[in-house]
């Protein structure tokens, strides 16, 4: 890994570049600027994000994302829905890692009701959570290639993600929107054969990670495109509330799976939180690659000792959540996904604040894009990794 000095040098360089870009506006021999509208329909925005960039040549002087093209008003919609109905809604927030969206909401509701899912349900939840992380991040790895002009990785990503989605569908019935989590447990137990199949798939996924490492991460062109680009220092990352791999890539050793006590099975197995000191695009991508590997390890270990028993705690048939407020966040594929649920003892939440990871992760874009080149906008956006539904909710 690169030494700390070189990191500091690079950070300084990026600051200098940004300042130079700022200063150039005031220089007398100013070239005529150009405003480039990236999006709302643009292949690099995974949906409809629009970025307005003022350019000087190919250098970005100022950039501002404009979102809202996919605002679905989930916070308002939760206010007219009952708790079971909300889970069907929230797994559409980050549609690539949908099961992971349900878990923190259900945990928040369970916290208010002061019940806990039986151990088997916790185990299966964790397995599905990690599977959706794998499905989500492996697509990220492929998409990264596309953003940089390599077309093959994305097909490999789709190929291997398919196995994971088949597993999720086999267990929950929904490929993208499992809606499998219930207050007090799970809708159903795993179907027979799930464990063996998952083991096979996890091997394939590790193989996929190796392939990606050879095809993309080891490629010198890829490295020259990402190393030292879009450096986010630790303190800035914290101020903007970056989370997940973006924060860990800036050298912050923080993983909500490890650092809080949740009724989930993460702390029952042995795994590692990967960090990277550089804070650049490469670091973010690299941390994610390692996380996919780590997730396959977590799943493998969890499969070894799933406790037997029921998957549903005793809950009333009509769920009324007692009055109170609860905040639960989990380490989702994109970062910290949390729900602040305010209940008034009703059938549905009184107010739900959905703290989605991408919203914070993208709010740093105006800061980080200053002074980079147009092609770097794409790599930085790709490495920050956002899902439009997760920004706009």
């Amino acid at each position, binding site marked *: 890994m690169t030494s700390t000095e070189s990191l500091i040098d690079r950070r300084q360089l990026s600051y200098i570049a940004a300042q130079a870009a700022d200063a150039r506006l005031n220089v007398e021999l100013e070239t005529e600027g*150009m405003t*480039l*509208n990236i999006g709302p329909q*643009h*292949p*690099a925005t995974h949906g409809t994000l629009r970025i307005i960039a003022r350019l000087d040549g*190919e250098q970005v002087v100022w950039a501002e994302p404009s979102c809202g093209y996919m605002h679905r008003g989930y916070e308002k919609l939760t206010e007219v829905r009952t708790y079971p109905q909300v889970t069907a809604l929230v797994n559409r927030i980050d549609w690539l890692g949908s099961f992971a969206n349900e878990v923190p909401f259900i945990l928040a509701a369970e916290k208010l009701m002061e019940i806990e899912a039986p151990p088997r349900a916790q185990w299966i939840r964790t397995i599905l959570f990690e599977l959706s992380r794998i499905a989500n991040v492996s697509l990220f790895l492929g998409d990264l*290639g*596309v*953003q*940089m*002009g*390599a*077309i*093959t990785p994305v*097909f*490999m990503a789709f*190929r291997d993600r398919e196995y994971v989605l088949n597993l999720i569908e086999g267990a929950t019935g929904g490929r993208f929107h499992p809606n499998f989590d219930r207050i007090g447990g799970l809708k159903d137990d795993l179907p027979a054969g799930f464990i063996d199949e998952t083991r096979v798939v996890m091997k394939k996924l590790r193989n996929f990670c190796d392939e990606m490492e050879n*095809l*993309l991460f080891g*490629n010198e*062109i*890829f490295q*020259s*495109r990402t190393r030292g680009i879009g450096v986010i220092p630790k303190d800035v990352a914290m101020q903007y509330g970056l989370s997940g791999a973006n924060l860990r890539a800036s050298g912050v050793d923080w993983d909500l799976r490890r650092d809080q006590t949740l009724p989930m099975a993460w702390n029952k197995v042995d795994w590692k939180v990967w960090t990277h000191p550089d804070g650049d695009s490469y670091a973010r991508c690299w941390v994610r690659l390692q996380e996919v590997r780590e997730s396959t390890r977590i799943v493998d270990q969890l499969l070894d000792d799933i406790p037997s028993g029921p998957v549903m705690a005793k809950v009333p048939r009509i769920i009324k959540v007692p009055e109170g407020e609860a905040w639960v966040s989990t380490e989702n594929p994109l970062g910290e996904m949390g729900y602040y649920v305010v209940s008034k003892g009703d059938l549905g939440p009184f107010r739900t604040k959905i703290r989605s990871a991408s919203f914070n992760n993208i709010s740093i874009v105006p800061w980080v894009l200053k002074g980079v*080149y*147009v*092609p*770097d*906008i*794409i790599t930085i956006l790709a490495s920050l990794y956002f899902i439009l539904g997760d920004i706009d909710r």
Partner: protein
Amino acid sequence: MNAALLAADLPYWAQALLRVLGGVVAVLLPAGTIVYVFLFKMMSFMQSRLGPMEAGPYGSMQLFAEVGKWLQKEDITPERADRFIFKIAPLVVLVSTFLLVAVVPFGPDAWFTNFEAGVFYMLAVSSVSVLGILIAGWASANKYSLLGGLRAAGQLIAYELPMVLAVIGVIIQAGTMNLQDIVLAQNAGSMFGWDGLGNPYILTQFVGFIIFMIAVQAELTQTPFDMPIAESELVSGYMTEYSGFRFLTFFIAEFATAGVFSLIASVLFLGGWGIPFAWFGWDTMDSVDNWMNVVGPLIMVTKMMLLSFIIMWVRFSYPRFREDQLQRFAWKVLVPVSLVNIMITAILKVAF
């Protein structure tokens, strides 16, 4: 081809017509083959899929279906585009491809034109396509296209130089700029007195070959040098506003140029249409048997496929550079290396 024509002693117009037809075949056939074999099939297989399978057996007619699809599409010109320039730009690109193929020899007598400054002409004409791309980008009245066109201009100019310098090594070694004579020099030559393989310059000019292929990759705007097109940033760059037939023209030109450059590279470095003359006891052009006029083009196509395989393989495997990195690479790595290559070649040429 030409041997037969000369024997029949056709009138001038008929010869001209046949040459034009031959040129069209020599441009479109490689283009179609490359698109089907590499773009449709090889790329798909490299991505664990089968590619088009519905049109014809194994999708072999897919290309015709695509052409039909493009011909049906509306020919859109942006409102604020410079109409005339916008419309001729694809043709400029395609014409440069046709002009290129004119100097490529396919056999001892199978050539369209055979003149002394063949290499010079080839290098000169290949940069015409830059003009087409630049005006396409400019005339589209689109910021993405403009960026793409400017990138293309900067990139293609940067890569013209290494390409020329790489070819100079070949010229020094062959002592001629006539492509036909370069073929002869490679096949009739010998390496350090051993003539079992002739003297294909890929062995003696390996550095030149690598630089030439890198420059070709950039010239063709194929990944890793496809910044002018860059789907994920510039949304196809200078091609953004083109549709229907005009887009098809760009598309054909892209792959036809890939084919023609592979042909040229095989002439310059792989011995062109020839096989080592020592195998058959030939020593000069005149002693080559007439059947080489039939076998020669087939050998050429084989070599072309080999080289385009490499071009496409790289294209499907690599991410792309950034524009400034590419310029740095061209000026700081390729140009010095090729200059050193020329120097060493010249010294060795004088020494031996």
